[in-house]
């Protein structure tokens, strides 16, 4: 059991297939995830990384478990702040469950470090990204603030 973790759940009126694509594919992620894209072969043991439009790698890790349209588990380490990189690998779990005309989407992010600074840092970012993802899938438009990095960063 992780020392630090959070669990977020949001309902998105879409299908598991569409949500899955939106989570993995660059043409979607760059719209709601600060302009970032993810690279991986998306199979167990494959490396994984997330990078900004300018090429900087923000986070990297490995696919632990993948069950298309249903579940993804990643090892995830932040790479831009030495303090956060030093905490090592966190574990991210996505779970997608079809409920009526929506998908119950669960995001769990955890780390075996007590009072993890990384978990604290990402716990504030996830709700913004998830709201924007929801908006993109339900209305065709992501939230403006999430389409790229804030100015000066």
């Amino acid at each position: 059991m992780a020392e630090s973790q959070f669990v977020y759940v949001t309902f998105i009126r879409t299908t598991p297939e569409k949500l899955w694509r939106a989570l993995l594919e660059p043409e979607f992620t760059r719209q709601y995830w600060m302009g970032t894209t993810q690279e991986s072969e998306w199979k167990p043991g494959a490396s994984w990384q997330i990078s900004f439009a300018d090429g900087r790698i923000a986070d990297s890790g490995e696919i632990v478990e993948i069950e298309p349209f249903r579940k993804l588990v990643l090892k995830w380490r932040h790479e831009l702040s030495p303090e956060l990189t030093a905490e090592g690998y966190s574990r991210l779990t996505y779970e997608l469950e079809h409920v009526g005309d929506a998908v119950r989407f669960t995001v769990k992010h955890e780390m075996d470090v007590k009072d993890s600074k990384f978990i604290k840092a990402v716990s504030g970012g996830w709700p913004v990204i998830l709201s924007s993802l929801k908006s993109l899938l339900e209305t065709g438009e992501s939230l403006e603030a999430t389409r790229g990095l804030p100015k000066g960063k």
Partner: protein
Amino acid sequence: MGGDLDLVFKALAAPERRLLLDRLRAENGQTLGELCRHLDMTRQAVTKHLKLLEEATLVVAIWRGREKLHYLNPMPIHEIAERWIGKYERGRLRALAELKAKLEGETDG
């Protein structure tokens, strides 16, 4: 069915349930027993309130062995904010909130 705003507002309407959310905000991932400690409510009452919070997905529960851990889920409230105030002057609202917090001596944090 989750994502229902009526359930969210109903769950937020009771001070006891807002208190439970405050407790989870202070320390996330508590069991029923931990939540009951220092609360002037019966275990049955807390159980009932937690059930409504879970139905509104304001609280998400995860099992760890035989322990049920409760986590604060900010998404419904975040979505309410996004729906009604997201389009307006978010920057100015944040500045006002920060000013208010400073003037009040940050007693809330």
